[in-house]
């Protein structure tokens, strides 16, 4: 077995475990929104398995996974019911895939005959699905909403609305008036609470009621009943909650018996996170803890009845215990952090395999592998990157012939980078392929009823690509296909509290950026003292450190590395009282801008565990802090510090 795929096999095993759990959950009678959550989990697992099987070079397994994925897609669209036969076929299909991959792992050939039988069963099931055009009813007309609002629903939203009404669930509309400053966070919070009670069908921007100055949304949700108090709404946020359509309105001829009886409302089971570690690390931790236990036993003995030892002995033991516990804490933190390089090495192997299979020569580069981030975060990025790689190879990069005729080198280039940008982690994937075909996106958007005839901006068209089920491809391919990849990526990035941005230039390539909030990160810093505080400056932004023989005057220009920049006190940048002079300065650069920050002492460099500041304690210019024995080291955000230095300089010049 190829050692570089060790992680892929392990991931496959985990995906099968997830699929088995989701299938077991699906077999239990339950509310439809929970059944849908399990179906989505199965869909995601098989989508990833399909890609992995193709990447490992096992087309029959990949095709079987593809068929399973088709079935889930049909159920998601409301065109196929979840019946006993469906569940049995599903269980056989997943078992066959698992057996097949287990056999491959042991060096056996692909079990083509067995898989063919499963694929046939799945094909028969698929034939039972309602045809997309014509026969599938659209029950959105039942919604008690203006026509313009009904037309604003995407194709997927219309299908789901129809499906839930057919399943016997009413559709409700919640009008939410949210504060402009916090609407995104509030909408996420309310949506999460609502999703625990039912299925969110759509979130539409809405006209704000007269006299209000916030932002208003209409959230369409399918739920048998709704506990408004459980939504955690703040005073004034709920405009109204009303029934928009109920199952009794569905024409008798269209009603179908419920496949699974809805159970009383229950919350979706929380996702369980796993931390995979070398056993040695856990062993070391156990040894450390045993050391602390021994100290505790000694202290217990000394403090026990009949013991009258010197009073300072237990205190010394307490100090030793504290030191031992700090070591344990440090070890635990180390376990949570991992270098981005570990993800990059996996991606490199996958990218090369995909390139080989698709016959597209590829030059791939990585940047920022040294960055250490939380292991959990990095683990959750593996799947989105897998989808992005597949999309880049399948849709983005042209074949060698097309590249030659476009005047490009035969090998496509793909650059993947990770960088810290202030309070965010920014991952980027850039290719030099054909870029997104905006004309095709617009045409597809109009076909799906997502766009009107009026022209749309490139940004709006690129956002459309992230809509569930959107794809410009007529045919589904082994690598990606339904636009599912980008939808999955978006939902996964949003689940991490991040954002996904696309940009593209026709014929020149595309850039996909994943912006993730930074909670904890290990950062190399230059430590400085200024006034009573110690600060850290991200080392990657530091160009030069200089201490003058005579004190340097704030506001006076300093000349370094061929540039002349004014010196600004670091304290002044943060709006704090600052002295007129400093004995040293640090030349800091962010992009093309540079400033000289006046400091009192340079303490050296080192790695720190940076924790971000919560919203209430956010201070402009500071990206977070690192806890140390002698207090907190505040780490500056170079970009913000640069802007604040400009303001401080302006204040100085204008004496404001």
């Amino acid at each position, binding site marked *: 077995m190829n050692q570089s795929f060790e992680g892929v096999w392990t991931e496959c095993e985990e995906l099968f475990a997830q699929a088995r759990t989701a299938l077991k959950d699906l077999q239990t009678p339950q509310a439809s929104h929970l059944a849908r959550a399990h179906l989505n989990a199965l869909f995601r697992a098989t989508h990833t398995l399909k890609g992995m099987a193709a990447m490992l070079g096992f087309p029959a397994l990949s095709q079987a996974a593809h068929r399973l994925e088709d079935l889930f897609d049909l159920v998601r669209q409301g065109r196929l019911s979840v019946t006993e036969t469906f569940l049995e076929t599903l269980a056989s299909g997943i078992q066959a895939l698992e057996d097949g991959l287990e056999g491959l792992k042991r060096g056996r050939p692909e079990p083509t005959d067995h898989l063919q039988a499963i694929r046939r069963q799945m094909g028969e099931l698929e034939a039972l699905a309602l045809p997309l055009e014509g026969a599938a009813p659209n029950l959105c007309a039942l919604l008690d909403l203006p026509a313009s609002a009904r037309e604003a629903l995407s194709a997927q939203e219309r299908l789901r609305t129809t499906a839930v009404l057919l399943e016997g669930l009413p559709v409700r509309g919640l009008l939410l008036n949210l504060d402009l*400053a916090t609407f995104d966070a509030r909408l996420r919070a309310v949506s999460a609470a609502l999703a625990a009670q039912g299925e969110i069908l759509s979130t539409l921007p809405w006209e704000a009621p007269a006299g209000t100055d916030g932002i208003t949304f209409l959230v369409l949700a399918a739920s048998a009943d709704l506990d408004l108090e459980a939504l955690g709404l*703040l*005073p004034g946020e709920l405009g109204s909650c009303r029934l928009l359509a109920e199952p009794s309105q569905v024409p008798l001829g269209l009603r179908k018996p419920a496949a699974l009886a809805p159970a009383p409302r229950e919350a979706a089971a929380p996702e369980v996170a796993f931390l995979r570690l070398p056993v040695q690390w856990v062993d070391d931790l156990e040894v450390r803890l045993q050391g602390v236990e021994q100290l505790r036993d000694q202290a217990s003995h000394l403090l026990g009845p009949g013991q009258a030892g010197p009073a300072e002995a237990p205190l010394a033991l307490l100090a030793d215990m504290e030191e031992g516990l700090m070591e344990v804490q440090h070890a635990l933190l180390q376990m949570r952090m991992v270098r981005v390089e570990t993800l990059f090495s996996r991606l490199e192997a996958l990218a090369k395999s995909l390139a080989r299979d698709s016959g597209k020569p590829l030059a791939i580069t990585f940047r920022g592998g040294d960055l250490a981030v939380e292991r959990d975060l990095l683990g959750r990025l593996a799947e989105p990157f897998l989808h992005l790689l597949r999309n880049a190879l399948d849709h983005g990069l042209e074949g060698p012939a097309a590249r030659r005729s476009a005047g490009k080198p035969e090998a496509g280039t793909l650059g993947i980078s990770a960088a810290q940008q202030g309070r965010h982690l920014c991952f980027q994937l850039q290719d030099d392929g054909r870029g997104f075909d905006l004309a095709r996106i617009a045409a597809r958007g109009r076909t799906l009823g997502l766009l009107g005839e009026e022209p749309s901006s490139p940004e709006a068209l690129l956002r459309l690509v992230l809509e569930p089920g959107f794809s410009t491809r007529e045919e589904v391919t082994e690598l990606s296909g339904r636009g599912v990849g980008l939808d999955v990526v978006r939902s996964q990035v949003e689940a991490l509290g991040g954002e996904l941005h696309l940009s593209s230039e026709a014929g020149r390539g595309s850039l996909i950026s994943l912006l993730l909030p930074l*909670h*904890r990160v290990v950062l190399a810093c230059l430590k400085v003292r200024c006034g009573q*505080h110690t600060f850290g400056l991200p080392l990657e932004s530091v160009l030069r450190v200089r201490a003058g023989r005579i004190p340097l005057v704030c506001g006076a220009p300093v000349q370094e590395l061929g540039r002349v920049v004014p010196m600004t006190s670091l*304290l002044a940048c*943060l*709006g*704090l009282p600052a002295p007129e002079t400093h004995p040293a300065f640090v030349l800091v650069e962010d992009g093309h801008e540079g400033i000289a920050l006046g400091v009192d002492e340079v303490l050296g460099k080192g790695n720190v565990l940076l*924790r*971000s*500041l*919560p*919203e*209430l*304690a*956010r*201070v*402009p*210019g*500071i990206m*977070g*802090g690192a*806890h140390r024995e002698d*207090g*907190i080291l*505040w780490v500056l955000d170079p970009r913000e510090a640069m802007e604040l230095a400009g303001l401080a300089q302006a204040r100085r010049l204008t004496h404001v």
Partner: protein
Amino acid sequence: MSDSGFWLQVEAAGQHLLLPPTAVVEVLPLVASQPLPGAPRGIEGVVLHAGGFLPVLAWRDLPACGASSAPPTLLVVLRRFGLPVVRVVGMVSLREDAWEPEPEGLPKGWSGGRVHLAQGWGRMLDPERMLGLLRELRIQA
């Protein structure tokens, strides 16, 4: 507003405060908060709690808050911030109709109403109102 009728009574900022128990995460011995350079008004500093930074309230910056009779010794941890308090008096059961609005002219800010206790007036510290007030103070700055 709690339906249970039970409230956590604490002494802080020169008065008796009543907190909805559902909003309280835990009560800890107070450790000195770390001063935050350029901290926004209303925030004293931060303490390390549950692996992250927890902002600690600066009573002196908040309206209708007086000087404490004694230095705070405890930190009442709410979901988004911590309150330094002199002592925890205990849980009190209060009828809903016992509450009355703050008198006209008093800066309300964080208070959800007041109630007559054995020790004098007690004021409801509404965490959501407090959050709103802290955001307002930040904007004003």
